[in-house]
């Protein structure tokens, strides 16, 4: 139940990748071997473009979500006046406090290089404060980067509205859609974003490959320099097998997504009801309506997350936690703290993220095992006493 971390390869994706193993030609080569591979790569590009409602020329294949995010954010620092695609004099970045580390750490690095940045806060349910955003997106703002759906609590942002605010002030818009693509229907035209990042392995595709959508005509600065691949926007011989797998995963998503997400949401509701009716003193994190179908983030008062995770692991259940202990740092999840919950609840948080291959039997097994685990931990805990005692 850790599908937000990664998903298993869809059998049809595995099949398509296996069938392409012998396709060793370099898609940049002009001879027939190269062309044969290029046809497959371009087929994948078309599948992605169709799925995102984008032009094929706006789809850039990358090494994954983190690279896509880095590329989109770092283009604002280009100061090379001969670089015709780069943004002009604007530098400021506006992002949120609950972004993925691949955005937060990148923006922090850019700040150390003199780029002004603002981190918009969120409410108790993880929604970005649009009033604060509106106030921060001034005429100096180069880029607004807000994630579409949060990986920890599953809250979905109103990216269309955010893009509307940003564009009104002439700023570019990037959205980290790693958790959204393959789970939510989306159109880059309708959202009106300039950049969008996603990764194949979150939608039953292979690891190490992703996409950066860059609207045609939007300023762009190459992050990885070298050869002329991807029209000079991302150098390096293409990860052909990965791209073929990504294309197939996207094609499957376009067929199966709506039915799958409905089923996943029903499973999550079953899990939520099962936990709520059998375990007292819990807190459900995230937005009650605008959330990812499979993400359920629960805090168990007085029980520490790493202990819960490891007792569940011993029962064969895989989840993740926002506890500091699991991260090796001293602070619990920055996302949960940003929603204003106290540290004890943040340390006691467990994220269940269900996917297309989970079953009712999986959910019932968790609901059977979890109450005993929480009770055992709470009995040992200095931070829990049953109500009435």
């Amino acid at each position, binding site marked *: 139940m850790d599908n937000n971390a990664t998903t298993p390869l869809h059998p049809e994706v595995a099949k398509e990748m296996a069938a392409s193993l012998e396709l060793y030609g370099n898609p940049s080569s002009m001879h027939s071997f190269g062309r044969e591979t290029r046809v497959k790569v371009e087929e994948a590009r078309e599948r992605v473009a169709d799925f995102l409602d984008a032009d094929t020329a706006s789809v850039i294949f990358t090494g994954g979500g983190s690279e896509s995010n880095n590329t989109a954010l770092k283009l604002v620092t280009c100061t090379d006046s001969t670089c015709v695609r780069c943004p002009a004099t604007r530098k400021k970045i506006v992002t949120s406090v609950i972004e993925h580390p691949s955005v937060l750490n990148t923006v922090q690095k850019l700040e150390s290089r003199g780029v002004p940045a603002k981190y918009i806060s969120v409410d108790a349910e993880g929604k970005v404060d649009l009033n604060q955003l509106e106030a921060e997106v001034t005429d100096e703002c180069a880029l607004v980067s807000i994630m579409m759906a949060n990986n920890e609590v599953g809250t979905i942002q109103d990216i269309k509205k955010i893009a509307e605010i940003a564009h009104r002030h002439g700023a570019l818009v990037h959205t980290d859609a790693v958790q959204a693509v393959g789970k939510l229907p989306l159109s880059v035209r309708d959202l009106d974003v300039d950049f969008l990042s996603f990764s194949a392995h979150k939608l039953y595709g292979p690891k190490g490959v992703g996409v950066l959508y860059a609207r045609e005509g939007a300023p762009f600065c190459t992050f990885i320099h070298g050869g002329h691949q991807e029209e000079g926007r991302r150098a390096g011989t293409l990860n052909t097998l990965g791209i073929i797998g990504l294309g197939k995963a996207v094609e499957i998503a376009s067929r199966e997504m709506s039915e799958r997400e409905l089923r996943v949401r029903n499973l999550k509701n079953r899990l939520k009801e099962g936990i709520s009716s059998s375990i007292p003193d819990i807190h459900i994190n995230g937005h009650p309506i605008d959330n990812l179908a499979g993400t359920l983030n629960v805090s168990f008062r*007085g029980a*520490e*997350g*790493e*202990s819960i995770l*490891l*007792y569940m*692991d*011993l029962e*064969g259940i895989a989840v993740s936690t926002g*506890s*500091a*202990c*699991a991260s*090796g740092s*001293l*602070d*619990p999840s920055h996302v949960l703290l940003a929603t204003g919950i106290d*540290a*004890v609840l943040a*340390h006691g948080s467990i994220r269940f993220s269900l996917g297309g291959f989970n079953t009712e039997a999986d959910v019932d097994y968790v609901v059977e095992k979890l109450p005993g685990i929480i009770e055992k931990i709470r*009995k*040992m*805990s*200095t*931070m*829990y006493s049953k109500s009435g005692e």
Partner: protein
Amino acid sequence: MESNWMYSEVVKDHFVNPRNVLEDENAFEADGEGVVGNIKCGDQMLIVIKVNDDVISDCKWKTYGCASAIASTSILSEAVIGMDLKEAYHIKPKDIADRLGGLPEHKIHCSVLGDKALRAAIEDYYKKTGRDELIEEQEATVICQCMNVTDIDIETAVKNGARSYADLQNMTKAGTVCGQCKKESEELLHQYIHMYAD
């Protein structure tokens, strides 16, 4: 599951079957009690002891924390029952980690608080029995050779508000010459922030 468990088998055993958990605080008539830990960092520990002729006759505990916090308190409680107070008073985190068959490095500083809780419980007992003279100043270890800064200096700096390595350097001058002690100082800094910061 066995082969890729992140801790040793001893840790797993004490995590799955914790010994001497304090189930009823009111029923246990403690002679000494110690609580340490910082809930914001995710660990808190309570140790209670009964003492008979300066020997620990019983020891029970409660822990809010991760698997190594639970296991380290459990194994400590087992080890100190029947132990002379003086010996128990000088148990170090490394002794506990060794008994557990080792712990991941980053876990030793943050989760092994049992020795400190036990020390606090023993000091509580000494105070209650009017033997404050047995309470020892902790032995200092020099961390920064260049500026002669000890672990106790670092602890004091944290108690006085040091929260970053830069603060520590300003307040103690540790690591301001050759810088070789940076890693160790930072580990201690984090450990003491863990124990004392709000």
